[in-house]
């Protein structure tokens, strides 16, 4: 592709100001949409690991001397933070 035809291509027959923004919006919106789950996944896993660490610390603090009936049950779901 030589420079003239590249210039013609970019000019879009005089409609460059409409065609290129349309394609840019299409690509930008879909790019943002595809980044969203990555960001959220990282957040969810980070929160979850922090929660697990807190629970492990709590268990370690209590040590073996748990009072009957107050021991945290490992099977119970943790309270939702968000």
């Amino acid at each position: 592709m030589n420079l003239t035809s590249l210039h013609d291509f970019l000019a879009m027959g005089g409609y460059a100001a409409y065609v290129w923004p349309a394609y840019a919006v299409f690509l930008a919106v879909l790019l943002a949409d595809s980044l969203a789950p990555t960001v959220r996944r990282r957040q969810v896993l980070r929160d979850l690991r922090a929660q697990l660490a807190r629970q492990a610390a709590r268990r370690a603090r209590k040590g073996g001397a748990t009072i009957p009936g107050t021991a945290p049950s490992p099977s119970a779901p943790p309270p939702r933070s968000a």
Partner: protein
Amino acid sequence: MTHWIPLWLHRLSSPPTFYRFAGAVWPWAMGLALLAGAIGLYGALVLAPPDYQQGDAYRIIFIHVPSAWMSMFIYAVMGVASFVALVWRIKLAEVVAMQSAPIGAAFTFITLVTGSLWGKPMWGTWWTWDARLTSELVLLFLYLGVIGLYHAFEDRRQGARAAGFLAIIGVINVPIVHFSVNWWNTLHQGSTINVFGASKIAADMLWPLLVLTLATKLYYVASLCRRVRTDLLALEGGKDWVRTLAAREAAP
């Protein structure tokens, strides 16, 4: 009660199974979407000849029409998934419905913006309150309403049920969008592509349109898989399979 549902479908609706399944599916769907997208864009911008009336401005059709189809298709998926979720209380159906909404809203937004950018040089206006444009705008508001209602509840499953109900009511708008160009006088041009019968478009313009339609469909599958996977992790945070997974991914 649900004995007619095939066993494999039943198993697939279990969150850990679907998590793995979606994890296997999305890289292929995304790869194929990018491939089809690249081929389609090349065909749309380089190979297809200019239109005899609209010049090169008509090239917006190659992203406008696939996005518009997706805006309606995703809404229909969301409606069906919401129905399944409300009737059978299947958690995965709720997740699929609610995670479809942002993708559908994205495609509806693209449709409106690209349509506006096409309308200015061809009709001389960015916007007009005619049937097709207005009903598509209502579709965007329906998506935003579903997303907003879903997040308005403290309890996510309760929110999903309320938003699912709204989604089902809003399904009525999908045929209105589709048939608006036939039912009312409108500035918007009629259907170019005809499933039953001859399409009003040349073959070298048609194939990029169809390839890009395929690309947007595949993209939806990939994006939905990724969103559903993430949401299942958040929803099932108390379960062993998620805790194991979180601990395993902590290493790097």
